[in-house]
C-alpha cells in the first residue's frame, strides 16, 4: 500500500506542475485522468481492510469529504462567472457546507461512542 501512496504522491506532484505553470504541453484532461486513476487505486487500497465495526463512520466520514465540492462552488461566485451563476454558487455553498460540517460532526459523535472495555467512561 505504501507503494501506491508513494506513486500517487509522485503523480500528483508531477501532475500539478504543468497545470500551475500553465505550460500547456499536456492537456488537463490527461493529467486529470492520471490523477483519477491513481486516486482510485489509493481509495481501493485504503478502504479494503476496514473492519465492519467502522463501516458506518467510514461512510459518513467519506460522505463529509464528498462535500469538497464546496471548493468548486466557491469558484462559482468569483468574477470569472456571471452574476446569475453566483446564485447557483450560493445554493451549492449552502448545501455543501451542511454536508461537510454535518458529516464531520456526526462522524465525530459516532466515533466518540466507541471505546474499549475498561477504557474511559
Amino acid at each position, binding site marked *: 500500500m505504501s507503494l501506491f501512496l508513494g506513486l500517487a504522491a509522485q503523480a500528483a506532484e508531477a501532475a500539478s506542475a504543468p497545470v500551475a505553470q500553465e505550460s500547456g504541453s499536456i492537456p488537463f484532461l490527461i493529467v486529470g485522468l492520471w490523477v483519477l486513476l491513481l486516486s482510485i487505486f489509493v481509495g481501493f487500497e485504503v478502504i479494503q481492510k476496514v473492519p465492519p465495526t467502522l463501516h458506518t463512520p467510514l461512510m459518513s466520514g467519506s460522505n463529509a469529504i464528498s462535500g469538497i465540492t464546496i471548493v468548486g462552488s466557491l469558484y462559482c461566485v468569483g468574477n470569472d462567472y456571471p452574476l446569475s451563476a453566483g446564485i447557483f454558487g450560493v445554493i451549492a455553498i449552502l448545501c455543501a457546507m*451542511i454536508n461537510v460540517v454535518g*458529516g464531520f460532526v456526526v462522524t465525530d459523535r459516532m466515533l466518540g461512542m466507541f471505546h474499549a472495555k475498561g477504557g474511559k467512561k
Partner: protein
Amino acid sequence: MISMTNVVELAYMASSLLFVLGILKLGKVKTAKQGNLWAAYGMALAIGATMLLLITRGDWSPREGEWTYQSHALALGAMALGSVIGWWMAVKVPMTSMPEFVAFFNGLGGSASMFVGLAEVPRAVERGQTLSSEGADFAVAVILAVLIGAVTLTGSLVAYAKLAGKLNKNRIGPLGSQGFNVVLGLVCIGAGAWGGFFAADPMGLWLSNGLLTLGSLLLGLGLTLPIGGADMPVAIALLNSYSGIAGMTTGFILKNNLLIVSGSLVGASGIILTQIMCKAMNRSLANVLVGGMGEAAGGGGSKDEGYTKVKSTSAEELAAVLDAASSVIFVPGYGLAVAQAQHKVRELAGLLEKKGCQVRYAIHPVAGRMPGHMNILLAEADVPYEQLYELDRINDDFKNTDVVVVLGANDVCNPAATNDPKSPIAGMPVLTVWDARTVVVVKRSLASGYAGIRNELFQMDNSLMFLADAKKALEDTITELKAL
C-alpha cells in the same frame, strides 16, 4: 516562481494527503477519531486556500454595479448558515436515525455538484457559445456533474424517506419501473448532448440543461424507488459512491486536482462498501437495483405463515434460562433499532456479566439499515467493541454456547440459507444460531422478514419464541432476573 496559484496548489496537495491519511486512520478503531479530524483539517485547509486565492486575485472584489459585494456576502452567509445547520442537525440527530441522516447529507453533497455544473450554463450564455467551445471533455464533465449530482440528490432523498419510514412505495406513477427509467435515461442523454454540444443561444442552453436537470432528478427517484427497505445498506453505500463521482466530475470542469482526488476516494470507498454489502447478502448488485425478492412477494405481510409447533416463552422463563447460562450471545437486528432497545441489552448483559456469564454479540454484516448500523447502536449503549463479533469469527462458537438471544433479527439467522438450495436466500452467509443449546427469538410477531420467507428456526426443538417488542421484553426480563 512562487505565485499565489502555486501556493494554493500546494495547499490543495496537502489537503489531498490529509484526506488519504484521514481515511487510512478511519480504518482502525483506535485512530478513527483522529482520522476524521485530519480529514476535517484537510477540508478547512482546502476552503481557506480557495478563499485566499479568490480574494488575492481580485475575484472577490466588487465589479460594476457593486452587485458582487452582495453575492460574496451571500456566499459567506451561506457558508455560515450551512455550518450552523449542519452542526445543529449533527448534534441533534439520535443515533437510531443515523442511516437516514447520512443519506440526507449525502444528497446535499450531490446537489452541490449539480449546481456547480449548472453554474457553467449562464457562463456559456454570456459567451454566446456552446459548452463544448471550452472543449468536449469540459462539456461532458458538466453534463455528468449535473446528471450524477441530480441522481444523487433525489436518490438520497428517497433513501432518506424510506429509512425514516415516511415512504414505503416502490412506484409513484410510472416512476420506479425499469422501462420508464430507460426512457428517462434516453431523455437525459439527448438533452445532455443538445445542451453540451449544440445549443449556443440562451434559450436553447437553458431549455436543454433544464431538461437534463429535470430528467436526472426524476431518474434518481426512479432508480432508488424499487430498492427494497432491506437493501438500503447497499443503496446508501452506492449513493455515497455517486456523490464522490459527482464531485470528481466537477474537478474536470474546474480543472482542479483536489476535487478529482477527493471525489474518486469517496467514489472508490462507496463502491467497495457496496460490494461488501452485496456479498453479505449473496446477491448481485443488479439484482438489488432491480428490486428485492421480498418486495415481489408482497413485502412480508403479517400472516403467521402456518407455523405449527412454535414454543412460546415469557420474560420469567427467559430470565430463568439466562440465569442458568454461563455463555450468552445476543444477535441484534433491525427490530432492536426500531424498539431503541440497545440500552436495555447493555443493562441485561451487565447483570449477566456480574453473575460471571460470558456475554458476546454476533453482528451480521447487513443487520440494520446501513453498513455497520448495529455496531453504532451498541456503541451508543456503551457496549465495548471487543464484545462485538463478526459472522466469520463467531459462527463456530454457537455450538459451545448455552443461550442465544435473537433480538428483532430474522433473515440473517434463517437455516434455509444453508440447507435449502431452492430458498431465495440460499447461499447467503447466515449466523448459525441454531447450533446453540437454546435459542430465544424476541420478535414482535411470527411474520417473515424482508426476504418474505418463512424461518424454520422458529419451530426448531431448541428454540423458544418470545413474541414482544424488544425493549419491553428486555425490560421485563431484567425485572424478573433481578427478582430471582
